[in-house]
């Protein structure tokens, strides 16, 4: 039989699972792990998600994801019906909605996206099932123009018309 020590016997900051302190370790503290929130595969959220840390979604979200200063990752089992704003957005799962990123959007091979993308850099891997538009105009993302849908696609300014070539011969 093993006698259980009373709580008073245990130092308050040490548990048997913790390694002993390393006196020879450098004094400088390692950088804290980047905070990241996780929405697990069994979680379903309806509404607006906002906050101050990166987000990894493996569950279902319906509504809006607004994390303009943070990265948003939609994992392989993530199912999103929402517009997403982030500093950078990576999609491995399914998204139905518009994506706007300050830095970049990456659609991985396993992704399925129906919506419009706005970001200074957009990377789309082969195999990604994407239908929608990609705004690669040089204006800064997010604040450049409101997200649009195909049904409200706007006409580019008239000076953007391609120069019409001399009429060719008919077939």
């Amino acid at each position: 039989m093993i006698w259980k020590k009373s709580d008073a016997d245990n130092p308050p900051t040490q548990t048997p699972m913790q390694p002993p302190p390393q006196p020879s370790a450098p004094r400088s503290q390692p950088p804290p792990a980047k905070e990241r929130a996780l929405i697990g595969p069994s979680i379903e959220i309806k509404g607006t998600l906002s906050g101050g840390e990166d987000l990894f979604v493996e569950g279902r979200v319906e509504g809006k994801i607004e994390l303009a200063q943070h990265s948003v990752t939609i994992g392989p089992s993530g199912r999103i019906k929402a517009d997403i704003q982030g500093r950078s957005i990576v999609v491995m799962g399914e998204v139905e909605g518009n994506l706007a990123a300050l830095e970049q959007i990456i659609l991985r091979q396993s992704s399925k996206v129906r919506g419009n993308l706005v970001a200074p850099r957009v990377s789309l891997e082969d195999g990604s099932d994407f239908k929608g538009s990609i705004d690669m105009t040089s204006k800064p993302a997010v604040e450049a123009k409101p997200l649009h849908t195909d049904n409200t696609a706007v006409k580019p300014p008239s000076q953007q018309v391609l120069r019409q070539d001399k009429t060719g011969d008919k077939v």
Partner: protein
Amino acid sequence: MTLSAPRETRVSPAVHKSLGLNALLNPVRGDRSYSILDLGPALEANVRFWSQFSCWLHIHDFYRSYREWKAADVPEEESEEAAFSALLPFSDETVFDIILAWDIFNYFDLRELEALVQRLSRWCRPGTRLFALISSLPNISASPTMFRILNPEQMIYEIPTQDTRPCPRHQPRDIARLMARFTVSSSFLLRHGIQEYVFAFK
């Protein structure tokens, strides 16, 4: 017993020179923005290529969408017009500078093509360019080829399957009637039996 290797379903990608693509891109300038409709699937190489320009790229994988629409349980009376309205849902204010039809003309009959071109014409303005590759071969791949832009003069043809189907071999007079609202800005008959067309909306 010997194990046979699984049948290779894809044909090895091959690089082809494209005079039509070059003609299409010739007027494209870096100091302007372009609105581009790509009727093919989303491909990494093409997104990367277009990202060097200031552009608004719409990707719609039209042939696959149409196949899915036809496979769905749609009423008999649903016409191609209805399908195309649903599959290409752009507003009347939308205007495209470039339409990449790739080789999908080879996968529609003339009646379907007429409805498609009529639909696309809504979003054209004088000078809008439409790029199409029309085959004169007796047989074509069972599914449209994926064209990856390498540079303004070269594309990689990636044929998704070794299976083939008869090519409709649209005749020049039919194409001329079909594209009555366009002129042929450039056309090039390539060695492998494909004619590249750059049409310009009148």
